[in-house]
C-alpha cells in the first residue's frame, strides 16, 4: 500500500525530472541534478528529519497543507508513502533518464519534420522509447519502497497497519522476546518480494528493449 502510493506519486515526477535533465539545458540544471540524487548519499534518517522539518505540521509546507486541506502527513500512511517516494526517487530517475539518454533526440527532430507537434512527439516517440526505463524504474522503485526504513521511521514512525513497512515490522519483531520466528518469516517475504521485483524488472525491460530494437 505504502509502496504503491510511493511509486504512484513519485513516478510522474521522476519522469518529468528525467526529461528535463536529459533534454533541456536550463539554469539550475546542476542544482536539480544534485538535489534529486541527494537521498542516495544522505543517511536516510537525515532525509526523514528534513522531511519532518518541511512537511511537519509546523513546517512551511506541512502547515500550509494542514490549514488549506486539513492534510496531515506526519505519522500517517500518506507520510510514509512520501518518505518512500523521496527515498526511491533517484532510483526511478536514473532508470528513466538512462533510457531517455539512449533514445536519440534526432528521432524527435525527424518526427517534427514529418509534422508531429510537441505533445504528439512526446506520446508517439519519446514515451514509447523510454517505456522500458519507466517500467524498470517503477518496479525497482516499488521493491525499494517495501524496504524503506530510516526515512519512514523518522518521518512517519512505525504504527502497525498504518505506517509500518516490512523492515520496520521485522525490526519491531526482533525487539520482542521470541519474535525471531516472526522476523524470519517477514524476512523471507522481504527476500521473495525483492527477487520477484528485480526479476520482473529485468525480464520486462529486456522484452521491451527487444521490441524497440535497442
Amino acid at each position: 500500500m505504502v509502496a504503491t502510493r510511493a511509486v504512484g506519486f513519485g513516478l510522474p515526477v521522476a519522469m518529468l525530472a528525467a526529461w528535463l535533465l536529459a533534454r533541456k539545458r536550463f539554469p539550475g540544471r546542476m542544482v536539480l541534478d544534485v538535489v534529486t540524487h541527494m537521498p542516495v548519499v544522505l543517511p536516510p534518517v537525515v532525509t526523514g528529519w528534513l522531511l519532518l522539518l518541511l512537511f511537519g505540521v509546523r513546517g512551511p509546507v506541512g502547515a500550509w497543507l494542514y490549514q488549506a486541506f486539513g492534510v496531515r502527513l506526519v505519522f500517517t500512511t500518506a507520510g510514509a508513502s512520501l518518505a518512500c517516494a523521496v527515498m526511491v526517487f533517484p532510483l526511478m530517475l536514473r532508470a528513466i533518464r538512462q533510457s531517455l539518454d539512449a533514445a536519440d533526440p534526432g528521432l524527435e527532430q525527424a518526427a517534427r519534420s514529418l509534422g508531429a507537434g510537441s505533445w504528439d512527439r512526446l506520446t508517439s516517440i519519446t514515451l514509447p522509447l523510454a517505456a522500458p526505463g519507466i517500467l524498470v524504474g517503477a518496479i525497482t522503485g516499488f521493491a525499494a519502497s517495501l524496504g524503506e526504513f530510516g526515512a519512514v521511521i523518522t518521518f512517519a514512525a512505525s504504527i502497525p497497519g498504518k505506517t509500518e513497512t516490512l523492515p520496520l515490522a521485522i525490526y519491531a519483531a526482533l525487539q520482542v522476546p521470541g519474535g525471531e520466528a516472526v522476523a524470519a518469516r517477514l524476512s523471507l517475504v522481504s527476500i521473495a518480494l525483492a527477487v520477484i521485483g528485480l526479476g520482473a524488472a529485468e525480464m520486462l525491460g529486456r522484452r521491451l528493449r527487444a521490441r524497440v530494437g535497442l
Partner: protein
Amino acid sequence: MTFSVALRHDFPGLALNIDFSAPASGITVLFGRSGCGKTSVVLAVAGLLAADRCRVAIGDRVLTDTAEKIFVAPENRRVGLVFQDARLFPHMNVATNLRYGERRAPADATSAIGFDEIVELLGLSKLLGRRPHSLSGGERQRVAIGRALLSRPRLLAMDEPLASLDAERRAEILPYLLRLRRTLDLPILYVTHALDEAARLADTLVLIRAGRVLEAGRPADLLWRADLPFARRDEAAAVLDGTVASHHPARQLSGIEAGGHVFLVPSLDAPLGTKVRLRIPAREVILAATEPTGISVHNVIEGVVRSIVEDPARHAAMVEVALDGEGLLARITPDAVARLGLVPGRPVLALVKSMAIEVFSR
C-alpha cells in the same frame, strides 16, 4: 517557380553567408567539404536552425523571413527531411514508419503520390513488416526517403543520405533518386561532398566553400571549368547532357548527341530520344593538333581551347575545350601543352575513348 535561400549566421569559427535560388523542380545539389555549412542550410530550410538572418521561400510561399518576422514552425512547413542516419523510429515497423508522416499530413494537401506508389517506386513491398534494426543501411535509407515523401512535402531536403553507405549500396540507391526526380514534381535539395553523386544527380549545382556560395549553375556549365576546385580532384570530369541519337547494333555502339557532337559509346538499351548524361573524366581525354589515323579511339571531337590552368601539385595542366555551348576538360602535362602550342582560342581535337565515357540515365 523558384526555390530560394538566403542565410547569414555566425558560428564560432565559421561565418555563414549563403544565398542561392534554383528552379523549384529537379535536384539542387549543395556541394562542398564537410564543415563548410551545407548541413546548416538544410536545417535552416527545415526550420530547425534559428539563424541570425534568414529567408527561405518555395515559389511565393515564404517559410522563414527574419526581416518580416515570418517563421513557419518545422512541424507545419512540410519540408521532408532525410538524414545521413535514416532515423527510422525503432519501435515501429517499416509500414508504420512510412505512415507516420502520411497520417500527419494536412488533409487538403494535394498529393501526387500515394502509399502504394511510394512502396512500388522505392521497392519497399518486401520490407513493410520488418523492424528498422533488421534492415540494411540502403534499405533503411529507402524507407526514410519514402517516409519523408509520404508526409506530402513541398520540398524534399536530403542531408548526405548516402554518406554512411558503401559504394555498392550507394549504387543501389542512386537509380531510385533519379526515378523520384523523373516521377515527382517536387523540388529536391540534396547535400553531398561526393563529386560523383553531385555530377549524376544535379540539375542545379551550388558549390559551397567556407560558408559561401562559390558558384552556382548547371553541372554541364560548371564541371568543365578549370578554375573551380572540382578540377583539382582526381576524378575531375566534365558532364554533358544529351539524347540518344542512333544505335549501331552491328558495331555494338550507340550515338549520343551532346554539345553539338555525336559521341559513340558502348551499346545502350534505351530508345532514341532518351535523355542521358555523359561524364567524361579529364584524365581520359587526349588532345591532338591533327586528326590521328589507325587508332582505336571513336570520338574525335573538334573544339576550341578556352583556357588553361596549371595544377602545380600534379605537374599537370587543366585544359578547357569549348564545344557547342558546353565543354570538356582535359588533364595533360604542361609539356604537351607546349608541344602542341595550345593557347586560348586555338582549335584542338579532343580524343575520347568510348569506354571512358560514363552514361547515366536521367
